[in-house]
């Protein structure tokens, strides 16, 4: 009896702790899973070992016979793992190079040994050498509402080649390091027809998917190490022989990661209710202000236009060069930036990565989409917001680079990466992350998605776009939205704002951009300014006006436009006449060609399709406009200066 009561009491205490509130007043998420982890970092063996108590709640209406957990670190166990088969690389030859996670004990809440019931599965590629997904057949299937408790003793060996996680000398970035529940999706959730676990293997081109959880984490490590984590420091105590134990807590985040390195310098700042901590190497101390400004810009912009940042703490890290493999990654309340020891003021690369990685706190941190299956929902949406933030705070034309004669807006980077890619049409934007062929994962999930989101904003306007995201946040914060759920929010907000101006819904837009493979290219093919013979004759035959100079209004002016791509988007067309008149037309963009004819305005001087470059899906801006009198001055000026500089150069190097 005592044997049965004790584990129950322990679990009750543990569950109570994970459901209690320490950081926020109210739970932000349903807390379907929770973790209590107590580990020690062995800096010589490069291992993290200890115990984990965790739970999962069956919130579905069916009985669930098993649980599934990610064992990500096993991706670094051999070159036969799915990660290395996909990448073609190797985790290294020496034992110290490899990464793995071993379980020495696995029991359920009643103390039942589950070790005989665990085995690795390979849901994505049937690669039997991959051991990144663990299935545990429950002794008793979990009924609706049941909570499954597990106790795991594990040891994680960190890999030497840091790929988001690992070690380099004394530098440690510890991520994907503990057995972690997959997401059990009841039917209907994310348009699933049947309930089941969503627990994918570790892939080279993929990130993650998890429930919002509470983490109570104790880490014991040498005293001289400086630690940063996604948790809030609750307590720090001295342990034996130059060791210390940190007690950390994080609430309602989707992953818990931490880093330790003796070389970190720690800086703190505050934005409204958020205490911000920055860890970076000494050589980058000069960049502290730039980094804090960047993260505060992102906090301000996203809070205003999407929704509040709900946590009172945030830590970010600029890893040193030896740990650069951990750069540019997000764990909601912890993220890593990417910089260099010397970063000129005009280059905003460090700020860009900071803004991007912080943005993930929203796009998959709060709005926890499935990064395995719909990577555009985190990377694409987040790249769109990153570009908006960078261009807003660092200059509309200089978000990325602000050098005297070379300015690069952030939004241009996304557009060019997509529009100039040879593979831009080989796959749609709606693909599982590891299925993107021919190296298109980054271009499609980040850049194409960001580009069509800009085009969407071009169609529905900035105000409505912000309202879409505010509504998306209101509806889906701390839940798991799918792409269709996002589309439904767009449809709802756009219909509410514009009625049927764009049709019954906006599905047509997503069919062409998100689910389609076509390109968008509009061009002005010709401008015709033709004197009307009849008018001329009329004038000659008219005794009153005979002999008077023919005026401009006798012209029939025609703008000829064509749609060269498959994507059909409504575009503005600005027609400018020689007499100064301007007419702004709206073309639904559907027909293969379109002519606008004008009488009574005289000659057309120039015409521009999409004059404000709002349709960033358009693969060629050059053919969007046409003029009777092209400006050659710039080219001539450039040529003159080039001639002169080359003359000087040749003269200088010929002694």
């Amino acid at each position, binding site marked *: 009896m005592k044997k049965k009561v004790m584990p129950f009491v322990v679990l009750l205490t543990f569950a109570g702790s994970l459901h209690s509130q320490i950081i926020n007043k109210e739970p932000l998420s349903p807390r379907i899973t929770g973790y209590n982890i107590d580990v020690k970092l062995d800096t010589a063996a490069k291992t993290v070992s200890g115990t984990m108590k965790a739970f999962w709640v069956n919130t579905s209406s069916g009985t669930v016979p098993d649980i599934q957990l990610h064992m990500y670190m096993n991706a670094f166990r051999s070159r036969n793992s799915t990660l290395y088969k996909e990448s073609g690389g190797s985790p290294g030859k020496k034992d110290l190079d490899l990464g793995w996670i071993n379980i020495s004990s696995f029991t359920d809440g009643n103390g039942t040994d589950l070790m005989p019931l665990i085995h690795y599965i390979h849901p994505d590629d049937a690669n039997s050498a991959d051991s990144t997904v663990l299935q545990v057949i429950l002794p008793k299937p979990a009924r609706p509402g049941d909570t499954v408790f597990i106790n795991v003793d594990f040891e994680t060996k960190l890999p030497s080649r840091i790929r988001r996680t690992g070690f380099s000398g004394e530098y440690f970035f510890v991520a994907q390091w503990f057995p972690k529940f997959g997401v059990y999706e009841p039917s209907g959730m994310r348009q699933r027809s049947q309930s089941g676990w969503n627990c994918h293997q570790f892939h080279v081109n993929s990130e993650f998917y998890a429930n919002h959880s509470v983490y109570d984490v104790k880490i014991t490590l040498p005293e001289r190490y400086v630690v940063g984590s996604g948790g809030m420091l609750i307590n720090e105590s001295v342990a034996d022989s130059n060791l210390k134990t940190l007690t950390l807590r994080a609430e309602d985040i989707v992953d818990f990661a931490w880093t330790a390195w003796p070389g970190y310098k720690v800086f703190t700042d505050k934005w409204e209710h958020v205490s911000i901590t920055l860890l970076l190497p000494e050589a980058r101390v000069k960049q502290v202000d730039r980094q804090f400004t960047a993260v505060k810009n992102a906090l301000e912009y996203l809070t205003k236009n999407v929704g509040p940042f709900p946590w009172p703490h945030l830590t970010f890290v600029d890893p040193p060069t030896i740990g650069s493999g951990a750069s540019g990654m997000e764990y909601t309340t912890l993220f890593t930036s990417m910089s260099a020891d010397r970063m000129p003021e005009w280059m905003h690369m460090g700020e860009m990565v900071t803004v991007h990685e912080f943005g993930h706190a929203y796009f998959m941190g709060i709005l926890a989409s499935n990064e395995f299956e719909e990577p555009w929902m985190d990377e694409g949406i987040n790249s769109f917001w990153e570009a908006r933030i960078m261009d807003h705070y660092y200059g509309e034309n200089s978000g990325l680079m602000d050098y005297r004669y070379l300015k690069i807006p952030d939004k241009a980077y996304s557009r060019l990466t997509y529009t100039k890619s040879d593979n831009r049409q080989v796959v749609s934007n709606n693909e599982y992350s590891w299925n993107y062929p021919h190296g298109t994962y980054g271009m499609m999930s980040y850049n194409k998605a960001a580009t069509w989101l800009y085009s969407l904003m071009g169609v529905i306007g900035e105000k409505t776009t912000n309202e879409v995201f505010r509504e998306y946040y209101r509806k889906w914060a701390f839940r798991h939205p799918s792409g269709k759920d996002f589309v439904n929010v767009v449809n709802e907000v756009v219909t509410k704002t514009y009625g049927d101006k764009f049709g019954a819904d906006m599905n047509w837009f997503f069919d062409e951009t998100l689910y389609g493979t076509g390109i968008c290219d509009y061009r002005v093919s010709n401008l015709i300014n033709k004197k009307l013979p009849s008018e001329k004759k009329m004038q000659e035959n008219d005794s009153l006006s005979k002999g008077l100079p023919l005026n401009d209004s006798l012209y029939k002016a025609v703008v000829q436009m064509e749609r060269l791509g498959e994507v059909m988007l409504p575009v503005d067309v600005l027609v400018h006449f020689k007499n100064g008149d301007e007419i702004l037309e709206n073309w639904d963009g559907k027909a293969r060609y379109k002519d606008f004819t004008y009488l009574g305005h005289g000659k057309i001087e120039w015409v521009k399709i999409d004059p404000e470059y709002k349709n960033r899906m358009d693969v060629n801006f*050059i053919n969007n406009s046409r003029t009777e009198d092209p400006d050659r001055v710039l080219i001539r000026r*450039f040529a003159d200066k080039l001639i002169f500089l080359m*003359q000087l150069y040749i003269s200088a190097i010929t002694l």
Partner: protein
Amino acid sequence: MKIFKSLSSGALRSLRSWKGVLIIWFFSLILISVFVIPMKGTMRTGFGSSMITERLRDGLDIEVISDLGPYLASLASYFFSGFFFVIFLGILLNTFFAGGLFQSIKGSKDIISVPCFFRASARYFWYFLGLYFMIIFMIIFFAFLIVGLPVGLTLQSGTPGPMTFIIGIIAVLVFSMAEVIFLLVADYARAWLVSSEKPAFFKALGFGFSETFGHFASSFPMMLILMVIQLLFGALVILVIRSWTPVTGGGVFLLFITTQILFYIKTLLKAWRFGSVTSLKETNKNIVPPNPPGGAL
């Protein structure tokens, strides 16, 4: 005194060589135009009748340039292959005309004729080319030795810091001084070649070195003055041209004329250098070294 006499004589000689300078200007313009004009044509075709060029008014617009598509590939090939080819041809051409220029500024006070200029250019071409490559090789070797090695070693020993910067600055200063010496050697050697009845490559090089170091006290400061003037002129010209951005056709034409006049002046300054060194060489030749103690030679 000798320095200023040589400088003023060099200035007069350079003015006397105006025809040669005109020829150099003309051929350099033709050569570079052969490269730039088709490139200009490609840009014109690429932009067509588009209004997009208005986005280039404030500087380079990466989106506009990238949207040139296949035209951008052509422009890139102009830069990456055509550019080096033109530079190479330019080196040959300038080296060729240097012979004529040295001929036109030596001793005689007559202005040499155009055929004579070309004859001299042809006569000394191979000697001058050999000298060019030899001196350039030495300059590159010294650049590696004086700048590359110390800076590289400092960088290798740790993260770049103020010490690397200081070492870099010192190394560049020392190298600049060395470059002045190499220019002196080259100029003395070339001046000797055009004045010698039997030109010989290694003799010329030997003369260049012996004259440079034999009359270092006058040669080096004179060359330093000339180099500083040339550098200041170059910097001023680049500053003016960089900030001058005419927006009308007339303005661009004026820019073209101005730049070409400035290049002509720049070439005259080079001729001044050649003239001054030649004058100094001629002065040095007339100085009879004093008898060593003891009387007999």
